[in-house]
């Protein structure tokens, strides 16, 4: 009895939890609706971003002559043009391109882990989860660098009317443009980064459980599938953040 309790077949009666609405298990269904509510939160952030951006003056001059000013919203290509190890070199959006590729790759390795779970292939699940953890950690590291650079600022900074210069960014003043620009950068990418970090912890737990054979004993790898849903959602959010924050 004591050893078999966790291995018992799930209740099969309609009122015992045996009935699966929409042919998805309770856990998967709840993960979907959680993600929906999370999409509302990120949607709200993007709505605020759009509103703030439209409420500010756009830059109308030649892109080559662009300078940072609180008068207008900055061009993203001119803000995000740094790459680790290439100090002072203008590489517009190169680093964020790398980050996007890393996150898409991690999504692929995640879906490969889920696929391996369907086949009850413990070794493959371990392998692909480990790749996902590696790419996730790389992405978080990249974001930490991006933040550090954004906060520290460029060599030139922004020249103010009284002759002083502002370097880098914080919540009240930044060298790139209106204060709201830096605020929204911190909130949107920070909230996304928190999600990535949470997912990364979940992946670590799933990896340890897989190695210990928990899911193999349970008879299915649904936990990997649910964490996979969350991880893909994080990737999905990044796709939108990337478009609205870095491209447009």
């Amino acid at each position, binding site marked *: 009895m004591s050893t078999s309790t966790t291995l018992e077949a*799930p209740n099969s009666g309609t009122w015992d939890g045996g009935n699966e609405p929409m042919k998805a298990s309770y856990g998967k269904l709840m993960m979907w609706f959680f993600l*929906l509510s999370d999409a509302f939160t990120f949607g709200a952030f993007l709505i605020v971003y759009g509103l703030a951006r439209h*409420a500010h003056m756009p830059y109308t001059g030649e892109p080559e002559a662009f300078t940072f000013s609180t008068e207008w919203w900055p061009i993203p290509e001119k803000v995000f043009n740094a790459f680790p190890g290439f100090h002072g070199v203008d590489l517009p*959006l190169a680093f964020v*391109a790398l980050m996007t590729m890393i996150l898409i790759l991690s*999504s692929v390795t995640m879906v490969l882990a889920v696929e391996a779970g369907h*086949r009850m292939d413990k070794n493959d699940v371990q392998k692909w989860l480990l790749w996902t953890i590696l790419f996730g950690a790389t992405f978080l590291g990249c974001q930490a660098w991006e933040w550090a650079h954004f906060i520290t600022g460029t060599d030139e900074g922004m020249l103010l009317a009284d002759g002083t210069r502002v370097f880098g960014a914080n919540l009240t003043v930044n060298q790139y443009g209106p204060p709201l620009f830096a605020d929204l950068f911190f909130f949107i990418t920070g909230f996304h980064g928190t999600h990535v970090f949470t997912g990364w912890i979940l992946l670590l737990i799933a990896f340890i459980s897989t190695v210990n054979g928990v899911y193999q004993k349970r008879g299915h790898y649904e936990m990997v599938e649910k964490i996979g849903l969350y991880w893909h959602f994080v990737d999905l959010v990044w796709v939108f953040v990337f478009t609205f924050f870095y491209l447009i």
Partner: protein
Amino acid sequence: MAHHTENDFHQTGEIPKPQTKAIWKTFGILVALTALEFLIAFTMDAGTARNAIFIILTLFKAFYIVAEFMHLKHETKSLIWSIIIPLALVVWLMVALLAEGSYYYESITNYFK
């Protein structure tokens, strides 16, 4: 041959071969769309047309992530709709508030003129 139920806890026999063709195909599409976005970012002048292309490409990418990676395409119709309808309402709100943002901008700039 022994009959295996769904709750058979002991894996017996061969592990099936991986079926990863569709996954790598989706990955290829996502990479191609992202590369295209970068190409457009550096070759096209900023404006409404370019932004529209970016948003359309983003929606394509979102479709492939949700439909294939998150497997929503292969769920039941009721689950698909219960996710899509609320999201469509948020998109509506987003578009409405963008229009509102431009109106707000117009009003304050004209007010201070």
